[in-house]
């Protein structure tokens, strides 16, 4: 049970009680059950007063609550107050009107009951009755007096017979002769029963003695209700007359004659009725102020009850009426604040309840729609984040142009590839990027030409290889550019750096060429050499002097050149057709020392220095091939420093082990460092390609072979210049003071299984 309904119950209970009491009041008045009403008046009055006080209390509490709410600005309190005031006005006004009219009616009405003429009539009636009775009494006393005189004339000794005659003459019901103190001496009665008449009161006796005759009325009593008292003797007149004595001298006791005459029954009843009415009227007249107070009090109380009831009803009704509106308004306020939670529904079947229900439904739908939107936004966001992550980690460069051809999106890959801060150019044209003009021109050309041919149905994209120079060193980049149209006129360009790939292809092509060339060239070399030697052998003896010398020199030149060519061809062949590496565990230090023993002179001169790392783990490798690698590298280094003075030239060979953070061996490295002129940038980029060399003589295959063997061993080969920043050179510009070649071996002879796996992995791929 909610608070509100509890309130409603209490209020309606009080109202019903009040109404019931008022109704019982009205009932009492309407049925004119005056005695009942008067009997219970004070009880009802107090009960009603209590109810009124209760109502007043309730109303007071409600009023205080309402005022507090209005002052606090609680939502909806003003509307409630307004409605309650209207309802109360509607309830109270007619009540007050009726009260005013009734008040006048009651106060005038009660006064009009008490009329002077009615009072006069009642007085006159009473006087009339009294007069009649007085006349009766007079008559009886006169007759009694006459009878007494006659009795005295008879001499005072009355016989019962004479007395009976007298009684009959008088028409009295009883006649008695009494003694001086009122004792009955002789009596006759109309009724046959022998009952002695009562003795008269002493007062009557004494007044009869003084006035000769006295009479009084007896038995005309009522108890205020207007009818004779039940069981009392009938009303009668008792007259007492003194019997005159003729002979005064005789000392006789005085005697009285007592006559009793019954009053006619109708007279007695009428007289009593008049008396009763008179008494009633006088009482009411006396109590009319009280009566007026009573009626007006009742009326006022009824008004108060009605007014209070109306007020309470007004508050309750307006509460009922306002509640759905408040619910609705509260809901609207919450929705305005953005709270789309579940809204309360007013559980009634009328339109207001329907309104709250509809509102709750509407809010629910709104909330659903909003959550749907939020969900899809979240999904889009997630997709965007996904896409962004993918874009960011893509090795390819991606540039998206909007419909005006301005850069919209650039991924880090693009920046990395073109080595330009492309993301800083967002919102600008690609042409504005330094060094990208040609690229931009190509891209737009392709897009335009493609847009024209878009109908030809190649699914909206194009592809082109493009070489561009970029970076501070004007390096040539080989790019594979792919363009596509996107919705809303945006355009997508994806490009990959395929420089490495092109290089690899070039190496592959070289190997093939070298192999064939070596084969083709090598075949005629031996016959050429043999023929030349045969010529010398045959002709040397036949020639003399200068001719012989020239022949010998020419043949020697041929043989030398052929020999050189053979070497060249062998190198080419070696490069092209290196045997598959036999990977076996070996100690790199031992291998290096073995190779360096061939360069004893350089070591003795201090030009070549070997620094071996201790505890070097065993690597797996082909000793023969690695020997050649070391040989090549050392020779290269010595060649590089050949032009420097003996004391200054220095080639250092160094081995070292690199460890991971956990302490496991990550790589075994071999460094060959010289302090020669170093590599040019071009060589640094392409030195592992065949036929790239810094030397005036040489095939340019040395490093290519190193690279190839390193690849076979799963090792990484790196070329770099040794740079000294803080040398004597001014402005802190890095100065190249040597070259370094490093090989990192990452396959170790730790476990036989690993070795086997590594060897199968490194099976010749060509």
């Amino acid at each position, binding site marked *: 049970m909610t608070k509100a309904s509890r309130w409603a119950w209490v209020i309606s209970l009080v109202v019903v009680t009040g109404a019931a009491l008022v109704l019982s009041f009205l009932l009492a008045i309407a049925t004119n059950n005056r005695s009942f009403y008067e009997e219970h008046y004070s009880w009802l009055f107090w009960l009603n007063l209590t109810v009124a006080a209760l109502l007043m209390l309730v109303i007071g509490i409600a009023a205080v609550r309402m005022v507090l709410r209005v002052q606090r600005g609680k939502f909806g309190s003003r509307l409630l107050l307004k409605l309650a005031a209207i309802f109360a006005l509607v309830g109270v006004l007619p009540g007050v009107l009726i009260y005013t009219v009734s008040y006048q009616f009651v106060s005038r009405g009660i006064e009009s009951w008490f009329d002077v003429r009615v009072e006069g009539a009642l007085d006159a009636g009473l006087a009339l009755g*009294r007069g009649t*009775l007085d006349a009766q009494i007079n008559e009886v006393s006169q007759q009694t007096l006459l009878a007494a005189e006659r009795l005295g004339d008879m001499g005072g000794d009355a016989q019962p017979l004479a007395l009976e005659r007298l009684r009959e003459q008088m028409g009295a019901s009883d006649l008695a002769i009494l003694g001086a103190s009122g004792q009955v001496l002789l009596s006759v009665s109309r009724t046959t029963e022998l009952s002695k008449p009562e003795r008269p009161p002493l007062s009557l006796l004494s007044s009869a003695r003084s006035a000769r005759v006295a009479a009084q009325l007896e038995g005309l*009593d009522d108890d205020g209700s207007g009818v004779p008292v039940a069981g009392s003797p009938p009303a009668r007149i008792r007259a007492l007359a003194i019997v005159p004595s003729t002979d005064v001298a005789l000392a006789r006791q005085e005697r009285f004659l007592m006559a009793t005459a019954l009053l006619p029954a109708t007279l007695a009843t009428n007289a009593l009725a008049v008396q009763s009415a008179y008494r009633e009227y006088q*009482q009411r007249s006396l109590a*009319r102020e*009280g009566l007026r*107070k*009573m009626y007006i009090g009742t009326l006022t109380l009824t008004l108060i009850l009605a007014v209070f009831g109306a007020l309470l009803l007004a508050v309750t009704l307006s509460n009922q009426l306002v509640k759905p509106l408040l619910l609705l308004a509260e809901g609207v306020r919450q929705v305005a604040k953005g709270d789309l939670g579940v809204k309360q529904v007013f559980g009634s079947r009328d339109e207001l309840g329907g309104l709250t229900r509809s509102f709750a439904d509407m809010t629910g739908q709104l909330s659903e729609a909003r959550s749907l939107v939020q969900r899809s936004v979240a999904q889009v966001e997630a997709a965007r984040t996904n896409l962004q992550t993918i874009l960011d980690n893509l090795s390819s460069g991606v540039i998206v142009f909007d419909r005006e051809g301005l850069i919209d999106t650039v991924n880090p890959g693009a920046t990395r590839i073109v080595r330009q801060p492309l993301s800083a150019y967002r919102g600008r044209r690609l042409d504005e990027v330094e060094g990208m003009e040609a690229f931009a021109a190509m891209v737009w050309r392709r897009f335009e030409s493609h847009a024209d041919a878009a109908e030809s149905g190649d699914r909206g994209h194009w592809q082109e290889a493009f070489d561009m120079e970029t970076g501070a060193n004007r390096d040539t980049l080989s790019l594979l550019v792919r363009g596509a149209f996107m919705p809303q006129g945006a355009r997508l360009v994806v490009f990959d750096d395929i420089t490495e790939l092109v290089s690899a292809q070039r190496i592959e092509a070289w190997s093939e060429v070298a192999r064939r060339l070596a084969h083709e060239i090598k075949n005629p070399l031996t016959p050429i050499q043999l023929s030349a030697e045969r010529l010398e052998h045959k002709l040397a003896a036949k020639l003399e002097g200068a001719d012989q010398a020239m022949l010998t020199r020419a043949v020697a030149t041929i043989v030398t050149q052929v020999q050189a060519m053979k070497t060249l061809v062998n190198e080419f062949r070696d490069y092209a057709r290196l045997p598959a590496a036999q990977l076996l565990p070996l100690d790199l230090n031992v291998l290096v020392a073995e190779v360096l023993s061939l360069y004893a002179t350089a070591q003795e001169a201090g030009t070549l220095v070997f620094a071996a790392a201790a505890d070097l783990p065993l690597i797996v490798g082909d000793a023969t091939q690695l020997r050649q690698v070391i040989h090549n590298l050392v020779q290269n280094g010595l060649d590089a420093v050949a032009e420097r003075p003996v004391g200054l030239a220095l080639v250092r060979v160094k081995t070292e082990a690199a460890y991971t953070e956990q302490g496991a061996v990550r790589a075994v490295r071999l460094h060959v460092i010289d302090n020669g002129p170093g590599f040019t940038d071009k060589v640094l980029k392409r030195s592992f390609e065949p036929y790239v060399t810094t030397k005036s003589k040489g095939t340019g295959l040395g490093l290519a072979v190193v690279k190839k063997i390193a690849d076979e061993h799963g090792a990484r080969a790196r070329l770099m210049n040794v740079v000294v920043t803080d040398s004597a050179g001014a402005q802190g510009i890095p100065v190249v003071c040597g070259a370094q070649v490093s090989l990192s071996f990452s396959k170790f002879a730790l476990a036989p299984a690993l070795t086997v796996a590594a060897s199968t992995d490194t099976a010749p791929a060509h």
Partner: protein
Amino acid sequence: MALVSSLALAEPQLTSFEVVRGEDGLTLSFATRFDLPASVEDALLKGVPLYFVADATLFRDRWYWRDQLISRVSRTWRVIYQPLTRTYRVSFGGLNQSYPSAAEAVSAVRRVAGWKLAEPGQVDAGDGYYVEFSYKLDTTLLPRPMQIGIDGQPDWSLHLERVQRLAAPKEP
């Protein structure tokens, strides 16, 4: 006016009050003196019956509980004017007596002698008995509108009270 009438009339008082232990139990005698105020006499003349009520209650002290009620007696007199015969009738129980004047009628209800309060067995020789007595003009028996009309008027508030402890019986 009320002031004048109350000055003119003697203050109602209980002139004598006596409780006697006797052979036949406890008897009570009292006499009062008061005059009917003018407004009351007027009402009487207009036919309003007046009720005089005398109440006497005998209690015995009880320290541990409410005092024990031994007996309670009450007498009600009704005085009514009969305009037809110009007499005042006093009813007491089944007894009726007529008086020619209001003063005579009232004097008949002013005193009681030998009113039996308790049977001999009801009261023992110990003390600790007391009697609460009241004598009043009972307006609650009047017609209701009349009651409302006279509510609070001093003329109608005749009320006499007395509480008297019972003396211990003298040693024979």
